[in-house]
């Protein structure tokens, strides 16, 4: 049995050992992207389909780089170009792809549960690249990898997720992943954007960003979808920035230096001010770099490779 099983659908239910194994594999794989020839033959001959039912730039590109640097053959299917717009069901689309003999599907879908739905119906490995407001496990993993490095471990560390937790798959994956690793997790945002049952997920709730900043070692600042205002969850983006925006002035009052994460894309001047995003404690671009490594690690492990062989994979070149 491999360390992950057939699919990576979410971080809920993953053990500390499993998460640690992924992060430990990802760390050395990062070096591949630093070389002149950014390619290893590990997944040579494997076919991966990136099945995106929602627009995405960075996640899709990150997966594509990860796949290509591992020498997999990749095909990108985006909604506009697929037969889904002709009324074909998700399961028919996937079965058709599978009939062309593929090995893995990376799926991004607007509905919660879509990745699991697919995984239960096809033989190929399925990687969830974000399903509705459920999970985005590779984003959670890259956040963990970044935090583990910056904070020198995760056990007992305090991470506060700031913003629209209600609609955030990134938030859920972070909560499960961080808790599995022994970190303390809090959320902060307007109550209208926090699930009513959030405390039952085992997290602390801060109503004021000032209190959160005082408490935390790191902030993971979520993107505020602009349509939340039109749907009546908050009165205005302006007020959101004034009450919940992470600003330099607020950070300067913190008792310690905070690590600042953001899954992107950012709304500068709304949930995060530019001088914070571009400031010395921002690790936002390192998250992006780690994203490729984490996705390489997940592809590597789901392909059935043992964690211990990761270093060997790193050494080999085409």
């Amino acid at each position, binding site marked *: 049995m491999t360390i992950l099983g057939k699919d990576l659908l979410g971080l*809920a239910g993953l053990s500390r050992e499993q998460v640690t194994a992924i992060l430990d594999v990802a760390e050395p794989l990062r070096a591949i992207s630093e070389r002149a020839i950014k390619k290893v033959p590990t997944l040579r001959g494997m076919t991966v389909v990136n099945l995106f039912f929602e627009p995405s730039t960075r996640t899709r590109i990150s997966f594509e780089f990860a796949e290509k640097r591992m020498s997999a053959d990749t095909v990108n299917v985006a909604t506009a170009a697929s037969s889904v717009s002709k009324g074909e*069901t*998700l*399961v028919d689309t996937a079965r058709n792809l599978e009939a062309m003999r593929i090995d893995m599907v990376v799926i991004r*879908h607007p*509905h*919660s*549960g*879509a990745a*699991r*739905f697919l995984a239960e119906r096809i033989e190929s490995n399925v990687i969830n690249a974000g*399903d*509705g*407001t*459920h*999970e985005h496990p590779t984003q959670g993993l890259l956040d963990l990898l970044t935090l583990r490095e910056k904070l020198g471990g995760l056990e007992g560390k305090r991470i506060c997720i700031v913003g629209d937790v209600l609609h955030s*798959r990134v938030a*859920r994956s972070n909560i499960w992943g961080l808790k599995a690793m022994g970190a303390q997790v809090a959320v902060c945002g307007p109550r209208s954007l926090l*699930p*009513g*049952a*959030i405390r*039952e*997920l085992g997290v602390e709730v801060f109503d004021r960003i000032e209190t959160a900043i005082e408490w935390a070692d790191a902030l993971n600042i979520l993107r505020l979808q602009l349509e939340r205002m039109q749907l009546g969850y908050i009165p205005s983006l302006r007020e959101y920035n004034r009450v919940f925006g992470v600003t330099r002035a607020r950070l300067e009052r913190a008792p310690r230096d905070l690590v600042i994460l953001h899954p992107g894309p950012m709304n500068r001047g709304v949930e995060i001010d530019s001088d914070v995003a571009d400031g010395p404690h921002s690790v936002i671009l390192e998250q992006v770099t780690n994203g490729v490594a984490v996705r390489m690690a997940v592809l590597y492990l789901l392909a059935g490779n043992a964690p211990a062989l990761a270093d060997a994979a790193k050494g080999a070149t085409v």
Partner: protein
Amino acid sequence: MTAPLLITGGRLVDPSQGLDAVGDLLLVDGKVAAIGGQIAGPEGATRLDATGLVVAPGLIDVHVHLREPGREEVETVASGAQAAVAGGFTGVCAMPNTKPVTDNQATVGFVKRQGEAAGFARVYPYGAITVGQMGETLAEFGEMVAAGAVAVSDDGKPVENSHIMRTALEYAQTFGIPVVEHCEVMALAHGGAMHEGTVSARLGLKGIPGEAEEIDVIRCILLAKLTTGHIHLCHLSTKGSVDLVRWGKEQGVHVTAEVCSHHISLTHEAVEGYNTNAKMNPPLRTAEDVAALQQGLKDGTIDLLVTDHAPHHYDEKEREFADAPNGIVGLETALGVNITWLVERGVLTIPQMVDRMSCLPAKVFHLPGGTLAKGSVADVTLFDPSRRWTVDPTRFKSKGRNTPYGGQTLTGQAISTIVGGRVVYQLAP
């Protein structure tokens, strides 16, 4: 004219006359001719041995969706009525959210005739409250009642305009029919796919808070109080709703209420894994709600047990959770679910369950049956209260297979169903 039918040696359970004793039952010319003790059947009577079985007035489900006209590939009046008798039901009330909507005498008459032609359970059509179930203009209650409608409802959605609901409650009194409300505040429920709580927070599905139902429950109770009309509340799903109905009854308001078999047996945990066969509206709620609904049923706050039988095509449920339609089939599992979760666990006795599945539905909706008193219609259900069986959806008479109980073992099953003195269903040995 069928031969007289003598049912012998069964446990006669008829709460309408306080009867629970072993004895015989004689049906002649579609009516109950004699009940109790040993009956010497007339010459040529067919005999049916009911030893070890409960002999009850025919079960009646006042909340089913038979999909005809409009979605005959999913269910027809005939297939639904056949599923009904296979589940022990001798009468069902068909909701009007058909295509086109059953909002006029012609369609009401059509549904009724389809039921008669099928010859299984009696099919009592609902008429819509408003034209097209659009919530704007009252449908013609008088003509629909003349054509066979027994109640009015916009089930599937609420009548949001309180003036229209008030008028419906007033106008329906002319015809002596209940106004039946699907309680939901759409603005609160909008986009919701399951109960709002821990499970929805975990699964990332938009939730429907219990208050979306409760606000409409209290609105309808207050409007019934204002108008002295009869409001019947569909498929209650929360503890709060039970408390509000209890208050309404204490105030003397003419309010009756029903609960579905799935809401007294399952919780929102059943959605785990994005199981679309656990998706319905109102959604499955918490264990605390289930306990309150059971208690409400026991103490009489909730009058009736129903199924909200809602067949869907396989393809419609075989998809992403948010896109799957609401509803499950229930006619062929309800008796087993009710015995397993209510009788076996001591919530209701067998007579109390029969009361809520037969006598009270007939009384609340002014339907024939619901009693085995001499002279009443010969609608009878024979069931084995201790027979254990495993739910196999592929064997359903309903065209719908969408059940969360597939593969589960239930206790209690219909053995014979008799409508108008004629055996219309017999469980294969």
